[in-house]
């Protein structure tokens, strides 16, 4: 009975994990650049057919493209295709698909949390700026127009699914993801940069709601398993009567 009870309990724990991931996805469904995650599970077998329940085997982000939407920010950029913006803060480098940047006093482009877009500085006298599809940044000043001001480069990884989530839309490189490769956007079949657009999260609310219902029912069914095992223990205890 104990084996049955622990197997059912492992199922409950798995559904709990599952629900946590789905809830996190749902909570961030409106966050631009957010990538939904999935948890995966596999059965635990002690050799042969001795089933011992289930165990989580991992959680990884799904890097499917989110829809691009027009936005009002002066420095909103989105990646159409694979790749990440590389951002820096306090000597650390992180990678993100969220492109809602704004100009800081020192000319750097920062997101809301103060992460700076690597390699770009907008001169202080710039009145406006545009970003081309290939990542080149042009600025207008009071005296000149269309001045080149650097190029936004993107980062790619040999194994992006092994990136570590830093919470929200940020990711960090790991040993398993491999080191980042910098590349210039634009060109044949390459990802492009869309200026004045933001990438919506790739979480589907309808799908997440469905996943929640399924997880909840599965949790209930597993709880029934624990109950049944407990009930049978009670019956077994009643075998011996005084």
């Amino acid at each position, binding site marked *: *009975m104990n*084996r*049955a*009870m622990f*197997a*059912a309990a*492992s*199922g409950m724990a*798995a*559904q709990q994990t*599952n629900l946590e991931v789905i809830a996190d996805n749902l909570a961030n469904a409106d966050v631009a650049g957010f990538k939904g995650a999935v948890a*995966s*599970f*596999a*059965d635990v077998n002690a050799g042969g*057919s001795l*089933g*011992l*329940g*289930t165990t989580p*085997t*991992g959680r*990884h982000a*799904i890097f*499917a493209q989110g829809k691009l939407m027009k936005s009002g920010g002066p420095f909103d950029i989105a990646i159409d295709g694979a790749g990440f913006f590389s951002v820096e803060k306090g000597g650390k480098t992180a990678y993100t698909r969220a492109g809602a940047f704004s100009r800081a006093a020192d000319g750097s482009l920062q997101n809301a949390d103060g992460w700076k877009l690597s390699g770009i500085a907008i001169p202080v006298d710039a009145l406006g700026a545009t970003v081309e599809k290939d990542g080149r940044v042009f600025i207008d000043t009071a005296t000149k127009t269309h001045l080149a001001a650097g190029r936004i480069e993107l980062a790619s*990884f*040999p*194994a992006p*699914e*092994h990136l570590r989530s830093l919470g929200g839309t940020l990711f960090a490189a790991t*040993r*398993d*993801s*491999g080191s980042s490769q910098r590349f210039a956007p634009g060109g044949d079949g390459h990802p492009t940069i869309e200026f004045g657009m933001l990438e919506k999260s790739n979480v589907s609310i309808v799908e997440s709601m469905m996943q929640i219902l*399924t*997880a909840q*029912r*599965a949790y209930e*069914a*597993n709880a*029934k*398993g*624990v109950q*049944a*095992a407990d*009930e*049978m223990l009670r*019956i*077994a205890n*009643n*075998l011996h*009567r005084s």
Partner: protein
Amino acid sequence: MQWMASAMHAARSQLETATHNLANVSSDGYRRAASSVALTDRGLVASEHGTFEQGAIRHTGRELDFAILGEGQFRVGKDMTRNGAFVTDRNGFVTDDRGRKLIGATGPIQLTAGTTVAADGAVLREGCIVNRIALPSGTKLQSGALEASNVNAVGETLEILTAQRAFETAQKVLVAIDDTRQKAVNDVVRLK
């Protein structure tokens, strides 16, 4: 009496199988174990065997998700699995969630620049087939989808109820036999 004890053992095995199945209702590629109880000269004996019903195909849109339609399994490292959720590692090798390499017809499948896996499992480099996800002939592969566990929660809940009631019945019979014996012992003593 031993027979009733064997019935209780069988019911317990049935419960263990059912809870194990239920626990894996979200494990992609998992195939439920079916338990059957048979009457032998040692009493009731429960045995477990695998099932081969196709699980539901869940669309994911990920390039390296594969669902097997029909027989066969993926070879990952030394093991076999029906779970087709693969990722690449930093050297481009295709691995499963636990880091086991996917083995194709000509060795581990590696995706370098310009290499892709076609929907039918062929690994193409510049238009030439260099490797292939090995599956029995007649089996189709669907990319961008996963095979969900073939566990049916309703069926397993029913199994649990059945096992529970069988266990209860066996216990009642055991108690009844025990009562009879108790009576016999007491009455025989009184007769003397």
